[in-house]
């Protein structure tokens, strides 16, 4: 047994910006970003599915890139800017109160949500893709969502939702 294990190691200070709000937290080094988001900050949009990086429902954006919050230590996210699904709509400028983000609206309109457990991860993976490539083809959409597992809808409607979101985000008016 390692010496350090006789008593839990000291907590560490972590500064995070989550959905635009700065936080200074004292966390155990073993805490994952997912545990801190859900249990310290009460942001339960990111889910734990497998806890092992394989299902994607814990996916959040860290400095704009999708990451597995269940495999990212909170202390390794020091100084990073995190976006969870709770903060997504607020990234839209001049949003009407209560309005969703266009990607969220597209998931609703294209019926890309069934049980909803994978949805926050799907939507954030889609946001990372569309921020980088506003007009992706279907192969790129499927690659970008390749790490996100859905057990309900069978992906077709999810892919359609991302296509719809891309068109709307590029300024096209597409009715539901």
């Amino acid at each position, binding site marked *: *047994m*390692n010496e*350090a*294990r006789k008593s*839990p*190691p*000291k907590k*560490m200070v972590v500064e995070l910006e989550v959905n635009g709000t700065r936080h200074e937290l004292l966390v*155990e*080094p*073993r*805490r*994952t970003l*997912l*545990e801190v988001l859900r249990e310290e900050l009460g942001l339960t949009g990111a889910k*734990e599915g497998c*806890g*092992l*990086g*394989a299902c*994607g429902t814990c*996916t959040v954006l*860290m400095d704009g*890139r*999708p*990451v*597995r919050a*269940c*495999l*990212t*230590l909170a*202390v*390794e996210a020091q100084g990073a800017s995190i976006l969870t699904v709770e903060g997504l709509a607020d990234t839209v400028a001049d949003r009407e109160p209560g309005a969703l983000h266009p990607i969220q609206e597209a998931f609703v309109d294209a019926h890309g949500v069934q049980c909803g457990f994978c949805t926050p991860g799907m939507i954030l*993976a889609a946001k*990372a893709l569309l921020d980088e490539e506003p007009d992706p083809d279907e192969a790129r959409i499927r*690659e*970008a969502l*390749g*790490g*996100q597992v859905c057990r309900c809808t069978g992906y077709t409607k999810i892919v359609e939702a991302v296509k719809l979101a891309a068109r709307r985000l590029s300024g096209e008016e597409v009715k539901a």
Partner: protein
Amino acid sequence: MLRLPHFAVHRPGSVAEGLQILAAAPHARPLAGGTDLLVAMKHGHHTDADLVSLAGLGLSGIERSDSTLTVGAGTSLWDLMRRAWPDALGVVAEAARAVAAPPLQSRATVGGNVCLDTRCWFFNQSAFWRSGRPACLKAGGDRCHVVPGGSDCHAVSQADLPPVLIACGAQAEIAGADGSRDVPVEGLFSGDGRRPHTLSSAELLLRLRIPLPPPGAGAAYEKLRMRRALDFAAASAAVYLERRDGGCARARVVLGGLGTKPLRVPEAEAALEGTELDPRALAEAAEAAVAAARPVKNTDLTPAYRRKMAGVLVRRAALRAWTRAAGEES
């Protein structure tokens, strides 16, 4: 929630400081992206380890000189894929893209993929699952559940970058207490499934140096897996070729997912060199790959199928590399 065990995280600000911590704490493990190590720890492996974060060592980035591309071990696969590569080295991005999925590529690093632990059905399982039978060789026990009665550990080397880096002739810069040394990437692998790398616990992989290929070079990577995302290689092949006057002047063929380390196949290389990659040369190279593969029943797909696919993957990769070497993307 699947909790991690307690551990301390050290955050050295330089390579020298990192090496000091590793030398002083024999249980410490380097933490790069964590996408494999933290899974193993959630499964109850390495529970006595403290972690040494490599994030502050400044090991991220790619530099190009006249003869070499130098890739920092801390470079993420995400960045690797988005880099404009010289044509013949596009295969490096191709292999990075074949790793897991984007939210893992963003954290996973080049060094972490090169140092990826070997894998086995009986090892990469939860502590609860494993408690149903005695510990295997890789988990510190005295038996192999894959080859009963065997005294060797057959855990598979399933990382995607090592076959490609070996095929491209890359060197690894290793730092230890006595300074740094360069070794061919091939030399990083021990072939022992229990401890698959030749690095000591007090050493760090700092950089990879990939020689810039001459004109007329091409390379390709093929990966067999159950799903087109997330899965590790059940078999893979990297082929690097140099084309001169219409013939193959040089070939390097490396298999992944088919043994305890990436397998170089000199017989397949000899079968391709001096030919124009005619069907007979390709068939001989494929046969050599099948003969060199060492699959056992410890990952997805049957060993017989994986062995057969070694030949198919080498043929496919060789043909794509050949087309690329001729200056046409395939």
